[in-house]
């Protein structure tokens, strides 16, 4: 029902009583059952969604920008009364008593949260294979990964299980799954969306964002989520109050940067051709194509993984089995508890998966006495150089366009036991994350194997509105209309 209809058009109909939110929500909840058995994209359906849809139909939210719009939310956001597991055993039974600020904003505008989506445990992964609840699959081909960590949110929108979903992006966790699943995914400037109520992974990188079938859909939900909130100390007042969801930037004279290092990467042939074709089209439309260089790109992976793991090792120390979440004190040898540290260790070792443990270990190591300067501090210095690379590039161009990943989706299991190869996935998304820049992924076409190809747009900080307008223009030019059937 949302394949050809924008969410704003649908919402208008609900407000005019020409469409029923209850009917829509019922259809979506009934309709997801069969496809979700194959995809494992949705972890939990919100039992209160129907009741809320009835309230919407009764006119309680007639002034909302998202009246009656069904939305799926990644399982690392708190929604009061619903589970928030971050796809980890350690939070399997956690039901937060409060709602994340950005999700509350969506609800205040009349949106209906219909469920929670699968993800890599604590958002650590690029394939959604690290979920305690089993992997999510790519709706274009079930043998392939949907990307990660917001794999469930991307796959659900691609499969039509909801028109919009919310995700989080720490090093590419919205953009990469959006590109693997052929949907639009937007990560705003760091600080634009409050992180209050979003389960922390790496606090200087984590940023909430949205998925949609179109730029306008994803941008409308994001616009609602962007709000100043004093409960997140890194949240900022953005210079824009709304996003131009339906305006296209006139392309004539726009300076489009093409990153030498991104195009020199070992890119898949079809993906390269699609990107180069798009750049050529932009040139024909009057854009000025500018070659730019981000010389520290090669260091983005070590820097990202050191910074993110260090922050994660600190953030995840809160899971101790005392106040909330899992408490599992069992031991294979039935030994009695030795001391308080043993108490913590047992629960944490039972509760976290291997990738989470690996990153906690890496972060603990890089923050430990004797290694701090060589690892964490050094990574923070190189992070500055990566950020400065972008500053220099934006003196010559207005936006950067390029690939999101080096290839389309890969097969399930292909990289699972090779962390370096999995980490390398993020080479083209982590630089913008480290610099805190707004960036997004747009579907560009399909490969010969019918797997989606994505285009990344990166804008200067707080140019989110301009980026959306540019993306609207790109979307018109690309004219991607393919849909997948699950």
């Amino acid at each position, binding site marked *: 029902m949302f394949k050809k209809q924008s969410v704003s058009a649908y919402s208008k109909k609900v407000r005019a009583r020409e469409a029923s939110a209850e009917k829509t929500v019922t259809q979506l909840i009934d309709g997801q059952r069969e496809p979700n058995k194959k995809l494992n994209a949705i972890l939990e359906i919100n039992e209160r969604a129907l009741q809320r849809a009835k309230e919407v139909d009764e006119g309680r939210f007639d002034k909302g920008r998202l009246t009656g719009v069904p939305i799926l939310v990644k399982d690392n956001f708190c929604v009061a009364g619903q589970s928030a597991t971050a796809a980890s055993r350690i939070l399997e*039974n956690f*039901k*937060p*008593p*409060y709602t994340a600020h950005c999700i509350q904003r969506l609800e205040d505008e009349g949106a209906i949260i219909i469920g929670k989506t699968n993800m890599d445990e604590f958002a650590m992964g690029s394939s959604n294979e690290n979920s305690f609840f089993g992997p999510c699959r790519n709706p274009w081909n079930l043998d392939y990964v949907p990307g990660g960590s917001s794999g469930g949110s991307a796959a659900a929108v691609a499969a039509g299980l909801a028109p919009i979903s919310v995700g989080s992006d720490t090093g590419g966790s919205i953009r990469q799954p959006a590109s693997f699943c052929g949907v639009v995914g937007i990560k705003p*400037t*760091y*600080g634009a969306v409050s992180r209050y109520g979003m389960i922390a992974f790496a606090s*200087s990188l984590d940023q909430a964002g949205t998925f949609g079938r179109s730029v306008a859909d994803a941008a409308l939900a994001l616009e609602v989520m962007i709000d100043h909130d*004093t409960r997140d*100390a*890194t949240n*900022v007042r953005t210079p824009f109050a709304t996003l131009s969801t339906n305006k296209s930037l006139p392309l004539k004279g726009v300076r489009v940067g093409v990153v030498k290092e991104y195009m020199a990467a070992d890119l898949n042939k079809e993906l390269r051709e699609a990107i180069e074709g798009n750049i050529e089209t932009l040139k024909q439309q009057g854009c000025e194509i500018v070659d730019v260089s981000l010389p520290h790109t090669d*260091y983005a*992976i*070590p820097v990202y*993984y050191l910074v993110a793991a260090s922050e994660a*090792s600190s953030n995840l120390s809160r899971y*101790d*089995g*005392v*106040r*909330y979440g*899992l*408490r599992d*004190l069992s031991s*294979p040898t039935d030994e009695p*508890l*030795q*001391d308080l*540290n043993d*108490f913590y*260790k047992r629960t*944490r*070792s039972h509760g976290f998966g*291997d990738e989470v*443990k*690996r990153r*906690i*270990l*890496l972060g*603990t*190591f890089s923050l*430990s006495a004797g*290694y701090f300067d*060589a*690892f964490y*501090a*050094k*990574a*923070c*210095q190189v992070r*500055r*150089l990566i*950020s400065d690379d972008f500053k220099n590039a934006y003196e010559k161009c207005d936006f950067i366009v390029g690939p999101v990943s080096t290839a389309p989706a890969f097969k399930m299991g292909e990289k699972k036991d090779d*962390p*370096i190869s999995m980490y390398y996935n993020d080479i083209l998304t982590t630089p913008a994350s*480290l*610099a*805190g820049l707004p960036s997004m992924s747009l579907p560009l076409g399909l490969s010969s194997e019918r797997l989606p190809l994505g285009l990344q747009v990166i804008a200067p900080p707080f140019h989110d509105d301009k980026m959306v307008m540019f993306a609207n223009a790109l979307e018109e030019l690309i004219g991607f209309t393919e849909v997948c059937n699950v």
Partner: protein
Amino acid sequence: MAAKYNIQAIADLACLKIEDKDLGAFERHFEKILEYFATLEGVDTSGVDPMITPHGIQSPLRADQVKQELSVEKILENAPEVKDSLFKVPPVV
């Protein structure tokens, strides 16, 4: 940056226990990751100000006001074990 490390000692700092059967895999991965990360060594960072958070965001101060947010009962609903409005843990001494 040929760092020497002991996985069990790091795990101890992180309050994690790595089972003996998993130790080999963790060590192998750790070694590969650190080897890759050693490329940072070659970057000249003399005089570079470390970047801790984007856009130079400074933590703002707010008025210290008492607010009623969540009730104790609500918070305790997620606790593994509770006694008399307190988190209960087994004796470990």
